[in-house]
């Protein structure tokens, strides 16, 4: 388990992380999402021990990470850059990983890299961005690390490889109980694979819960009211996060359980009322809008 407690980090007077507290459990696939500049990469770097926090602590299975190789052995960080050491090849990279990760699975790595057409002595400098990403993911999955931290690691991969990697990851989760922590702006993908979501905005945690729970606690529905002036009544009854009006059709997202909302809306005797599935993207937008991150305001 990764425990993050009251984490603070600032750069040049700008607060990148402000009292971040969240847990990443062993049976999670953790999706880390957030607005631009929210602090996702900073958080991942602190968890992986690349940078040191100003205050707070990060514990990986009870051990502090920074400058602690035994804790770091449980982590493998895939950054969003495509940097490799100079003149490196898949063979030399696997040698380095073998030297630092004692559980590195060389056989598995060779098998996977051959399947993907990566010659072991080919110069990585000549690889495309996507191939470099593939290689990074293969190395991470072969490292034997328990926690795989991916910072927009699937960007640049073609759909086939993307699917393959996700399958391998799922297998690893099932077999070896690895815990992927995936930071991405591709919310559909996150929604597909993640069990737990952490949403960051301006360095703070807006929510950190199981996706199912988030969806359970928020509802989206469409309603056509008898009288459009009843909009105010609805607002007072259910305190919606957002209301979109198109004529007399209201599309509402509100916090609360389904039964409660159903009862409240039905009390107004609507002409039409239907619950709709709530996507992660909508949750993202509504939660961040509630904090003032509103597109209309940006372009006002």
């Amino acid at each position: 388990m990764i425990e993050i407690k009251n984490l603070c980090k600032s750069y040049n007077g700008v607060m990148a992380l402000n009292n971040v507290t969240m847990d990443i459990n062993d049976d999670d696939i953790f999706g880390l999402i957030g607005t631009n500049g929210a602090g996702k990469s900073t958080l991942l770097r602190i968890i992986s021990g690349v940078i040191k926090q100003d205050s707070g602590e990060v514990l990986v299975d009870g051990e502090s990470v920074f400058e602690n190789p035994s804790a770091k052995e449980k982590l493998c960080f895939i950054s969003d850059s495509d940097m490799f050491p100079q003149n490196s090849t898949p063979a030399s990279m696997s040698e380095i990983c073998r030297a630092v990760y004692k559980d590195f699975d060389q056989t598995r790595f060779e098998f996977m890299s051959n399947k993907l057409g990566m010659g072991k002595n080919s110069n990585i400098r000549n690889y495309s961005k996507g191939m470099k990403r593939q290689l990074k993911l293969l190395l991470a999955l072969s490292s034997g690390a328990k926690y795989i931290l991916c910072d927009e690691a699937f960007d640049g991969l073609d759909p086939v490889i993307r699917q393959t990697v996700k399958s391998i990851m799922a297998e690893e989760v099932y077999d070896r109980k690895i815990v992927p922590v995936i930071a991405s702006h591709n919310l559909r993908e996150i929604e597909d694979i993640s069990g737990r979501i952490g949403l960051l905005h301006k360095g703070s945690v807006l929510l950190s819960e199981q996706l199912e729970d988030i969806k359970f606690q928020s509802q989206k529905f469409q309603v056509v009211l008898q009288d459009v002036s009843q909009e105010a009544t609805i607002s007072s009854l259910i305190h919606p996060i957002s209301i979109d009006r198109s004529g007399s059709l209201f599309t509402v997202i509100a916090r609360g359980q389904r039964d409660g909302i159903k009862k409240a809306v039905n009390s107004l005797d609507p002409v039409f009322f239907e619950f709709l599935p709530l996507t992660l993207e909508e949750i993202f937008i509504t939660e961040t809008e509630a904090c003032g991150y509103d597109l209309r305001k940006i372009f006002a």
Partner: protein
Amino acid sequence: MISEKSLHKLIKINLKSNMYLAFLSFVTFLLCFPVRLLFLNQTIDNNYTTSNTELIYQQTRMIQQVLERAGILPTVILMVFAFIMAAFNFKYMHSSASEDFYHSIPIKRKKLFLIRYINGAVLILTPYILANILGMILGLIITPTPYSAIPIMLYAMLRRIVCFMAVYSCVVFSMVITGRTFIGCLTAVFFMSFLPGCLTLYYSIVGVCYQHILNHDLSYMFLNTSAFSPASSIYYHFGDIFSVMISIGYAIIFLILGIILYDRRPSESAGEAYSWEITKNIFKFMITIPTSFLTGYLIYSLSGADMVVTDRTWFAFSTLFSVCIYSLIIDMIFNQGPIKLKKGIKLTAAAFLTDVLILIIMICDPFGMDTYIPKASELRSVGFSSGYETYYQGTIMFDPDASIKAEMNQTTDFTPILKTVSRSMNNSVDHAETENISTDDGNISVDKTIPCTVCYVLKSGRKVYRIYAVDVKSHEKLLSTLTKNKDFNKHASLFRTEIQGPSTEAVITDWNTQVSINKSIPLLQPDIRLLQKALKKDSESMTYSDYKNSTALFDISLICSDSNYDYDSNNTAYISEMYIYPEYKNTLEFLRKRGVSTKGGKNMIDEITNITYQPYVNGNISINISGKEKIKTFLSSVKRIPDIGNPRTDIKSIGYVNIYYKNKSKYANQGIFVRIADIDKVTKILEEDKNE
């Protein structure tokens, strides 16, 4: 946790991936050592060597230049490699993408640092050592170098390795404290040049602001400041074991600091100028102040200034103006553009005020540094030098710095020196004081005083150097007193310095006519040592007054048959010409034993066709004197002087005489400086010939 075995593995992996650098290093040093030896050996042409001895001598010199301490080329190349390797190996700290990789893998920063540090050194030093050893073996095979030279060659190799490590560690440390490779390289240059540069600048600026604080020459400055740089410390104290220890010290200190600071280095500083904000401010402050003074000094020098109030004003103005400009430029370099300039204003103001304070101290001298004369009770001894020995005793190439000479010419009987310098201070004699003499060609400027260097050695051991402008009379009186002291004479004698290098024969010429009075006599090294001993003994017993009142009999010049011997590049002081006086009993005895007639030159009057005389104050005039009697009268009325001398108080009676001989194949035309001894006779002759 990473095991030792894994650590070795990582080192091996890193070495393997950078093997091409080792190859490059090996090729370079192969060219420096065995290839260069073979090439140089080929160029030593037997046809031009007169003997086997000469061949051996040249081969020995070749070995010294390539494999021993004299060889500077391999040292420079190693330093360049050290610089490049350190920057290359540690630039990963300057990229956030690289740091994401290296700092996320399960390895402690210290170990990562050491892996890269060791690898960088091994990649360059291993090929260097191999090539050097190959060169040594080849040198022993192709030349008759004895095996006893092996420790010397190994010592030279060790010195270069130590120099490499000092520079390498310094650059690595610079990479740790910075966030961009370019800034890291500049910082490394800063560390290697800051202290020597500041000291050299200080020594130069004292000449601008102070009249009496000695302005040392570059060789003195290099000798005394080289210890303060990891790049030049290996040359401190003439490169002895002490210099090796200093260089090792630099290597260790920079390495330890590098490790400690790397542990604490924030990874997010990649891309910033410096790893910590405070470091940036410190460097900015330390760069702007000396560079502003350097600019002020350069403007002062280029304007041809000469200690006038307005020139000091320009010096001060240029310094203060440039501190603002440099501060701005440095901010732009650090911030990669004209952003955050407002933030730097406070520091600029602090640098400006510091410059003002330094200028006040230097120009106004509130602590009386310029006028400081130690009390007699504080002194252990005092040294004095005015260069009289190079006027009377002989000529010297690459004369040591006046401060070194003053340091050597120490005496405990220093009361006359203190009296003289106090008097010159009280008279406020400006060492640049001159007198303008009008001539047909316009005014010429003549020094009225003699610059005298004094070295006060305090009882604490501290040495204080000063320069005073002493009037002619006081100078003569002082030297007359000092040279009566045999101890002073021993150190002040020109012949404490080495006579010319690998000489083989001596040419002796008559003092007045400069015609050779003997066939050249063979003089090899043992003879030269004996000659030097005799000259030293004779000069020690002559006082200043003795020299002034005497006339030399002849000059001795030594000929070096090694036409390739490059005195200039060796840059060491040596006597090129000696003046022999009738009072030099030991020297004359030495010459007599070698068949030299010491009675003086042949009477050359019959051999002369004509002479010309050019008065110093009127160089355009050349008066021709012909006729045996006139020539005889003229030459008997003038006295040859070795040089114009300083000060030229009798400037109107000094001139240049050209002597033309009938038998040009036997006697080359000669030119000498003379002083007119009998003004009436000479005036008459000159008037007659002028009219003709």
